C-alpha cells in the first residue's frame, strides 16, 4: 500500500478506528506485513555528522529504513536523536554524510545543499512536532490544507475533501472550524499528525509526539500512530514511550553521545540488550526511582 492510499480511510469502515478500544494483545512486529523482504531502503543514511559550534552532536550515524518499516529512536536527552530526526527533514543541515531517499534523491552533505535539494528532501518527509506547532491564526482545516494548497498547488476542493476525510478518521470533524487554542493537547497533536499526512509524504517523522501531553491524552495519539504503522506508513519516531515502542517498532535504535550504540528488533533491545549503556538507560526509564 502506498502512503497516499493509506491516507484515505476505507469507506467500508463504519467508525473511525480511533474510537475503538485498543487491541488487548499487542501486535507483534513479525505478525505485520513487511512488504517484500528484500525491499530496497526508503531511507538510507550514511556517516551523518552534525556539530553546533564546536560541539559534535552527531558523530557518524548510519541508518536504513525500508518501506513500511517503523524505526524508533530512544536515548537520553541530549543524545542527538532529535537532531538526527531534524536532519532528515532539513530543519538542521548536516555537516557531512549522505542521505538517500527511495533511490531518487541522494544528498551529500559534505557541501551545503541547495535550497532546491532541501525542498526535495522536505517534500518526501513530514514531521510531527513535540509542541504540535500548529498555526494559531488558522482554523484546523486551514492548518491542514495550507501545505497541499499553497505549496503543492493541489486544487483547494480536493485538499479540503482529503482533509475532512482525515479529520473524520481521527474523530475531529466537528473541530474543523475551530482554532488550535480551542483544542486540547491531544486533539492538537492529532491535527498535527493529520497535517503531516495531508502532505502525502513517503516518510513520517515524529519528534517526541506525546512528551508535551497530559498523561491521559497520550493514549489517543499513540493509538493513531499504531494504526498508521499497521497501515504501512514508513515512520521514524523519537519517543520515551517504551511500551509503545515495543508494540509498534520493527527496529529500535539506542542513540547516545551522537552515535547509534545498539540497534535491533524490540524483543531483543528491550529483552536482552548487549551494550551496558543500553541496559543502564532502559533500567533508568523502567525504574526511575
Amino acid at each position, binding site marked *: 500500500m502506498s502512503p497516499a492510499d493509506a491516507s484515505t480511510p476505507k469507506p467500508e469502515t463504519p467508525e473511525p478506528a480511533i474510537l475503538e478500544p485498543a487491541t488487548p494483545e499487542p501486535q507483534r512486529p513479525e505478525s505485520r506485513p513487511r512488504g517484500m523482504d528484500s525491499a530496497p531502503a526508503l531511507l538510507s543514511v550514511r556517516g551523518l555528522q552534525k556539530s553546533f559550534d564546536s560541539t559534535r552532536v552527531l558523530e557518524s550515524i548510519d541508518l536504513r529504513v525500508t518501506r513500511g518499516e517503523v524505526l524508533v529512536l530512544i536515548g537520553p536527552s541530549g543524545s542527538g536523536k532529535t537532531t538526527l530526526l531534524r536532519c532528515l*527533514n*532539513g530543519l538542521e543541515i548536516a555537516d557531512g554524510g549522505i542521505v538517500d531517499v527511495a533511490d531518487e534523491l541522494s544528498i551529500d552533505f559534505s557541501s551545503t545543499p541547495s535550497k532546491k535539494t532541501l525542498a526535495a528532501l*522536505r517534500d518526501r518527509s513530514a514531521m510531527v512536532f513535540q509542541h504540535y*506547532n500548529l*498555526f*494559531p*491564526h488558522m482554523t484546523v482545516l486551514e492548518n491542514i490544507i*495550507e501545505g497541499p494548497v499553497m*505549496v503543492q498547488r493541489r486544487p483547494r476542493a480536493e485538499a479540503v475533501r482529503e482533509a475532512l476525510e482525515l479529520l473524520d478518521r481521527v474523530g475531529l470533524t466537528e473541530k474543523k472550524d475551530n482554532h488550535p487554542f480551542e483544542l486540547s493537547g491531544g486533539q492538537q497533536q492529532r491535527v498535527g499528525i493529520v497535517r503531516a499526512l495531508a*502532505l502525502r509524504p513517503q516518510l513520517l517523522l515524529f519528534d517526541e509526539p506525546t512528551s508535551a501531553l497530559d498523561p491521559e491524552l497520550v493514549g489517543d495519539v499513540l493509538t493513531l500512530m499504531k494504526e498508521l504503522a499497521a497501515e504501512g506508513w514508513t515512520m521514524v519516531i523519537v519517543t520515551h514511550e517504551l511500551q509503545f515502542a515495543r508494540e509498534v517498532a520493527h527496529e529500535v535504535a539506542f542513540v547516545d553521545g551522537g552515535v547509534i550504540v545498539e540497534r535491533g528488533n524490540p524483543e531483543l533491545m528491550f529483552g536482552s540488550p548487549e551494550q551496558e549503556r543500553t541496559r543502564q538507560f532502559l533500567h533508568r526509564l523502567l525504574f526511575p526511582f
Partner: protein
Amino acid sequence: MNQSEWDLLLSSFWPMVQGALVGTIPLALASFAIGMVLAIIFALMRLSKVKLVSGVARAYISIVRGTPLLVQLFVIFYGLPSIGLVFNPWPSAVVAFSINVGGYAAEVVRAAILSVPKGQWEAAYMIGMSHRRALTRIILPQAARVSVPPLSNTFISLVKDTSLASLILVTELFRQAQEVAAFSGDFMLLYLEAALIYWIICLMLSSGQGLLEKRLDRYVAR
C-alpha cells in the same frame, strides 16, 4: 464662566472639529498607512543577514529616533526648498510623519517578528514553504497580532504629534485653535478646548485598541 466665554467656546468648537476631520485625522491615517509600509520594509531589512542591508535600516531607525520630530518637519518643509524640492504643507507633513512613524514602528515590527516562536518557522518549512512564503503566510500574520498594542500607542502618539503640523501651516485642529485664539485673545479657554478635543479622540482610540486586542489576543502562539 460668563456668557461671552460660552459663546466663544461653542462658536470655536465646530471649526476645531472641522480641523480634526480635514486635518488631524486624515493626516494621521495617511501617515500611519505609509509609515507602516516603511516600517515593515525596514524591519525586514534590519533582520537581514546582509550587513549592508541591515546597516542601512539601522541608520534610518537611529536617525529618525535620534532627532526631534519638529526638526524633521522643518527640514522637509523649510529646508528642502533650498535644494529645489518644494512641497506644499500637507504633503510635507505626510512625508515627515510617515518617515517618523516608519522608524519607530520598524522596531515594533522587528520585535514582533522575533517574538513568533521558532517552531512556527519550522512548521512552515516542514510543510514545504520557502522563507518568503513562511514570512508572509505564517510569521507576519502572527507578528501583526503581537504588534497591535504597541502600534496602537504609536498611532495615538501620532494623532497628538500632528499638532506640530500647525507650525508648517497645515489646517488642522490646533491651527484652528490658534487662529481663533489670536483673534479673540482668549488663549487659556481655547487651548484647553483644543486639549479636550484631542483627549476625546484619544479616548475613543484607546477604547478601540482595547476591543481590538481582546479580539486578536487569542490567536497568538505561546
